[in-house]
């Protein structure tokens, strides 16, 4: 049994690594083109929400002109409206296609990042439901047009349902031309096409219910860029009309929307029972992902714990937690006020709370501020500080992470055993997330005599813990609790954002910062020269000679 679990975990790990390598390369490529702020791969979820809004607005317009009594004719009339109807219909169609594309990227990304289990299970499952509802809603939308493709989809759907022992007569008979298709069929389609998207917004609310401050819309530049491109596509390449569905003609030629009907060429040649077996198996595998993607119990990070004696009730961890896993409760001991309580079912063990706590009273075991200080002390003992070099404090999942460097670096290993790896000659002090770095660690490094500290975080919209880079920046430069003390020389600090695939960019930033640190060291050495003493020494030397 354990062997089988190990094999499953091995397979999952290989699959994830493959996906992660693919994503890392794609991220780097898109970051170079659009910058991390406008990288559409980082905003796939928000783009879906934007596109759903576009579908809602364009759908309202189409609804005004659609007639269930003459579906094909009414859609043809809409398409014939050269100035508005044609491109609104096209925008509705292209927007729905882009939404499926964005959902696929979003789901694949989270799977490859291992963000599909534990407290994230609800988001994963509700996301799958959203995808299912989106596909079914699209199906009803295509059937509403009642052209050749619509008939193919309707007949195929009826063929699947007819193998279920719940209908006394085959549904497929409705489409053979024995009788005119009742308006009730098109009314049902229309109802579902309107009701399902409304339901989607409810599921979307569930989808983001466990995260604080969800980013529901992409940045403006990306938003207007996406809308502009889809609008241009709609105007320049509007969707045409296939011939009306005809039960007395073999549906030989049609246009196929790959995003919604990619399965049609496959399923049409399969027996309906086989389609069910494949469909249900794929669904079961996807739904069970939280089970088969979760790490072994011993590899799982433990949820945060609070040391109530140290908690001052400042609420900073409660404010910073990206997953709303922390609540403040009234104290029951002799002290007055509130203290933080972590819900282990919601905590993803990102450790962001550890960095927001000045007295270091909260965090996952091994990741609290105190644990970090112990580690950094050991680090300094192992790596004597060099005032002309830089220590890289790197997020495990970013460009300076062991997960990405292990293959390249012989010293790469488990950071818990204090075996620092290197990136271009500089030692790495690794943390699970840049948002987990307690500012005391940075201060400790600088005061120990390290030339500079380069904190390598993921890009703000690509953080596995959602808000790590944001809070890191705030704590270092904008006095957010637990802030980096003013006494720490900011010239010796730098934050750099780099995703797992951006090693060349990291190397460039590191070289640049190292130069800057060396110039600082030289300047300090020059400033330390006592000119009077130097002159006296020179005079004495001259007199002696």
């Amino acid at each position, binding site marked *: 049994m354990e062997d089988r679990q190990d094999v499953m975990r091995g397979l999952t790990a290989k699959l994830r690594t493959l996906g992660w390598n693919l994503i890392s390369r794609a991220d780097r490529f898109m970051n*170079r*083109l*659009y910058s991390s702020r406008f990288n559409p791969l980082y905003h796939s979820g928000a783009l879906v929400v934007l596109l759903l809004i576009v579908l809602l607005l364009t759908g309202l317009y189409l609804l005004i002109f659609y007639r269930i009594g003459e579906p094909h004719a009414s859609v043809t009339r809409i398409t014939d409206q050269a100035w508005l109807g044609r491109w609104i219909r096209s925008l509705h*169609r*292209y927007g729905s*296609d*882009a939404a499926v*594309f964005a959902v696929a990227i979003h789901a694949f990304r989270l799977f490859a990042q291992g963000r599909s289990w534990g407290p994230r299970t609800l988001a994963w499952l509700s996301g799958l439901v959203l995808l299912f509802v989106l596909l079914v809603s699209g199906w009803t939308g295509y059937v509403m047009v009642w052209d*050749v*493709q619509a008939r*193919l989809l309707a007949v195929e759907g009826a063929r699947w349902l007819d193998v279920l022992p719940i209908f*006394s*007569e*085959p549904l*497929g*008979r409705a489409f*053979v*031309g*024995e009788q005119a298709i009742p308006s009730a069929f098109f009314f049902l389609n229309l109802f579902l096409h309107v009701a399902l998207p409304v339901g989607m917004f409810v599921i979307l609310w569930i989808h983001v219910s466990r995260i604080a401050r969800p980013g529901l819309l992409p940045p403006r530049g990306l938003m207007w*860029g996406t809308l502009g*491109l*889809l609008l*241009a*596509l709609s105007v320049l*390449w509007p*969707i*045409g009309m296939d011939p009306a569905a*005809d*039960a*007395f*003609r*073999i*549906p*030989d*030629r*049609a*246009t*196929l*929307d*790959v*995003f919604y009907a990619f399965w*049609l*060429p496959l399923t*049409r040649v399969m027996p309906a029972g086989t389609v069910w077996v494949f469909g249900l198996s794929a669904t079961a595998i996807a739904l069970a992902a939280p089970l088969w993607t979760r790490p072994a119990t011993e590899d799982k990070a433990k949820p945060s714990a609070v040391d109530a004696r140290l908690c001052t009730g400042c609420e900073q961890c409660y404010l910073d937690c990206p997953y709303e896993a922390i609540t403040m409760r009234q104290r029951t001991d002799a002290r007055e006020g509130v203290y933080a309580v972590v819900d282990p079912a919601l905590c993803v063990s990102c450790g962001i709370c550890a960095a927001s706590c000045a007295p270091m009273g909260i965090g996952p075991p091994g990741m609290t501020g105190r644990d970090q200080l112990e580690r950094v002390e050991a680090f300094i003992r192992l790596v004597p500080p060099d005032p002309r070099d830089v220590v890289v404090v790197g997020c495990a999942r970013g460009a300076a992470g062991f997960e990405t460097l292990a293959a390249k670096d012989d010293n790469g290993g488990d950071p818990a055993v204090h075996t620092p790896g290197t990136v271009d000659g500089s030692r790495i002090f690794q943390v699970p997330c840049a948002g987990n770095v307690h500012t005391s660690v940075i201060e400790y490094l600088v005061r120990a005599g390290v030339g500079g500290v380069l904190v390598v975080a993921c890009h703000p919209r690509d953080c596995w813990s959602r808000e790590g880079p944001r809070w890191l920046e705030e704590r270092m430069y904008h006095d957010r609790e637990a802030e980096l003390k003013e006494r720490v020389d900011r010239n010796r600090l730098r934050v750099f954002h780099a995703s797992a695939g951006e090693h060349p960019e990291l190397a460039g930033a590191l070289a640049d910062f190292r130069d800057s640190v060396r110039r600082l060291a030289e300047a300090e050495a020059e400033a330390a020269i006592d000119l009077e003493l130097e002159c006296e020494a020179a005079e004495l030397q001259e007199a002696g000679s």
Partner: protein
Amino acid sequence: MSRVRVASAVLVALLMTFAIGALSQVPYRAESAGQAWIRLSWRVSAPRVEECRTLTPEEIAALPIHMRRKEVCDSEGLPYRLRIDLNGEGVEETVIRGAGTRGDRPIYVYRELRVEPGRHQIDVSLTPEGGGEASTGHAPTEALELAEDVDLADGDVALITRSEAGKLVVRRAEP
């Protein structure tokens, strides 16, 4: 940002947009050319075959008071035999029973024959099993029969169904 990078960014955005447009309307040939279909689709409300039995006084006494009756009956729809011949060759001969778990729903026929375009002789019959009268005790049930030559062009679909008068007819696309 260099000009090359801006141009590349624009180009990639345009390519992705074009890909969405292209994948949204891929030409698809659902069926190969050079074929025609003959569909058979109709339903028949089959008479019910009922078998009744008088309960013994002991059986009646064993029933709850509000469910006591003298006679119990089991019924199901009369089975029919479907026979399809195409160009003189038997394609199918099956006994069809009423749909539903108790077999008391109407009988339906739903078949699709794929043929080459051209002229085809089709013979279809749906006859009650056991002659009807003997088993039901009602008036004999009429058989449905059709024997017709059908001309089918490439891509045509002919539908054999029941007319309003209840006879089997061939329906074609309206010219």
